[in-house]
């Protein structure tokens, strides 16, 4: 009876900060760069990600991926990418941000639908941090997980990345990034 009472007490205890962990196997981050002759997509699932939801509805999120883990389907290009990204000096791409969920996701949780969240983020690429707003769609799924999808664009030159070239023509400055993450609530 004591065990049952304790469990009930825990279930009814006030919610503190809750954390969510990204499931790398079900998640991916993909970059897209464009050259006059072709388009390149590089994808990784080697991700670390965590989010903390505070009692006041403030969400802190952070995702990190090793630069060397991106696969564009061309080993030569991927190796070149490591060079322009100076992967030995700056081995990770890091995105972290803050969002206020009051009236947003918290309200949506009661309806079990999707919500649009604007993450005030900081993207660290090639050792250069750039602030930006990342629009995200959060879907609360029946299996108890949350799927977070979003896209944003980074400027290679703003991050001081030397744009690779082919036939003496550089790739476009804009690099689009697609985010598709699955998060699970961490055990308290």
């Amino acid at each position, binding site marked *: 009876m004591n065990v*049952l*009472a304790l*469990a*009930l007490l825990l*279930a009814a*205890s*006030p*919610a*503190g*900060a*809750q*954390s*969510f962990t990204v499931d790398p196997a079900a998640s991916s981050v993909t970059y897209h760069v464009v050259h006059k*002759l*072709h388009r390149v997509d590089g994808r990784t699932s080697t991700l*670390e990600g*965590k989010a*903390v939801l*505070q*009692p*006041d*509805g403030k969400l*802190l999120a*952070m995702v*990190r991926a090793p*630069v*060397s883990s991106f696969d564009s389907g*061309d*080993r*030569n*290009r*991927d*190796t*070149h990418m*490591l*060079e322009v990204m*100076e*992967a*030995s000096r700056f*081995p*990770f791409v890091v995105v*972290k*941000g*803050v969002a206020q*969920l009051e009236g947003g996701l*918290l309200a*949506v*949780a009661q309806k*079990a639908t999707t919500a649009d969240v604007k993450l005030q983020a*900081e993207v660290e690429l090639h050792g250069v*941090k750039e602030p930006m707003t990342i629009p995200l769609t959060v879907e609360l799924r029946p299996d*108890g*997980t*949350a799927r977070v999808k979003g896209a944003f664009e980074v400027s290679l030159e703003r991050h001081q990345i030397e744009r690779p070239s*082919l*036939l003496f023509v550089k790739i476009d400055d804009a690099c689009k990034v697609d985010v598709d993450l699955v*998060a*699970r*609530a961490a*055990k308290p």
Partner: protein
Amino acid sequence: MQGIPPMRAPRTPLRAARLAVLTAILALPAVGRADPRLLDEPLRVTAASAPDLSVRGVLLAQVEAAKPAADGEQKPAEAAGGDPKPAPAAGGDAGGMDFDLLGEAKPPPDAADAGALRLRRQMLTAHQVIGFGLLATQLATTIAGQLNYSDKFGSSPTARYQMTHAALAYTDLALFALNGAIALLAPSPVKRSWQMDRVMVHRIAMFTAAAGMLAQGVLGVYTSQREGYLNQEQFAKMHLAIGYGTLAAMTVGVGALVF
């Protein structure tokens, strides 16, 4: 005629007491209505009483936790003397970006040497430039070879393309050897698993072109030594055909990386 009076439930004190007890039972919280258990059944936390760890469940818990505050009441955490602030993991300035949820990152195991990467890039840039020159030279050599063949085995041979073809062929061979050596000697600081990608197509095509180039060299010299023999034209035709094949392989090899 007098009607039958409607039946009414007698409001006895006993019935009123029964209703009061029933209402009290229904009003009891869930804990008061635990499912009956067998005495020999192990006691365990039921799914209904376990914390809901789904994302939605956690969010709903947040909503519930926020409600009393919205009503102007004290939050349960505060009432219990608990700390409503975020977990230490969130640390730092919650309003800004001065937080680290993931901790110190371990360096990736395949961190490449920057110097080797730079050298590789320089060598492969040179390989790319020479490669385009090589493709142009191969095209010119094939055209000159076709003209030389048509002239030599035509009605009135003049040999006016012979030197041009030979010069282009030796240049082509030298460029091919140089470019192949640059590609093979370029450092590969990142070990990646073999897969069928554009680089693999490029390599297969260029190894095919290398075989063609080698055959071209041998056959070209042999054909020129067959001067006066009846089968010289047959060898020349074979040399020409291999030339077209080499050009095709080289075009595929370059195209695989460019397009």
